[in-house]
């Protein structure tokens, strides 16, 4: 019988059946965040083409992107960046630095660092409303 690397049909079902440990979820998340970020680069490049249409078009667009809704999306996107970046380092450690022996500990560090920087970025992006909120309480 010919060698089949994957079942021709139903690979989603097959993949879902596997028992998943932390590393499997990291693998799935790495792929999903990677696809999401690639789609976002396309969007980013397309959005900035307004620079070729002069000052008015660009500043108009940036006004839209400064609204709270877009600020929130910008913040949410950073979670994909952080996970993909830190888990990417983990993958490189596994490949090049004997990381298979300690990749679970690294995964914990990945999640902690990602959450800390995500919260930090949230503060930076929303520092104005946050400062205003605390000023109004005081």
């Amino acid at each position, binding site marked *: 019988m010919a060698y089949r690397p*994957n079942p021709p049909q139903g690979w989603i079902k097959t993949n879902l059946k596997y028992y998943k440990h932390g590393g499997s979820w990291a693998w799935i998340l790495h792929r999903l965040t990677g696809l999401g970020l690639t789609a976002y*680069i396309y969007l980013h490049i397309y959005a900035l083409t307004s620079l*070729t249409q002069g000052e008015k078009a*660009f500043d108009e667009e940036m006004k839209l992107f400064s609204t709270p809704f877009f600020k929130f999306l910008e913040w949410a996107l950073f979670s994909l960046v952080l996970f993909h970046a830190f888990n990417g380092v983990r993958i490189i450690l596994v490949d090049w630095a004997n990381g298979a022996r300690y990749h679970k500990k690294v995964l914990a560090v990945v999640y902690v660092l990602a959450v800390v920087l995500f919260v930090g970025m949230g503060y930076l*992006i929303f520092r104005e409303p946050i400062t205003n909120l605390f000023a109004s309480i005081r």
Partner: protein
Amino acid sequence: MYVYRSSRGSGAPSWVLQRITGILLFVVVIAHYFIMHSDPASGHTYAAVLARMHNPFWKMFDLTFITVGLWHGLNGTWGIFRDYDMKPWLSLTIYGIIILSGIAFWVLGINTILSF
């Protein structure tokens, strides 16, 4: 010693490059986020972009950033599809979409930067 024999490339060069560009992007994307996306009020006016684009460093930086970022993203996307057993026509179609859209958006981005 392991000897690779196949009509298809082993993918080793793109595997190494994926890691090298990944290390680059680790630094650059996080820095980009803190510089450009942590405060929407700064550096986002047309005048600010114009000033930055007259600095050869930032111009080269952005040209490299677009190229490396797109390559890493699309090489990764193709890497995901490569994992699955596809009929040749489907594989070729997906590869074609990745290459053609990649070139189109690369030209679009480069054109924006070089318009200054």
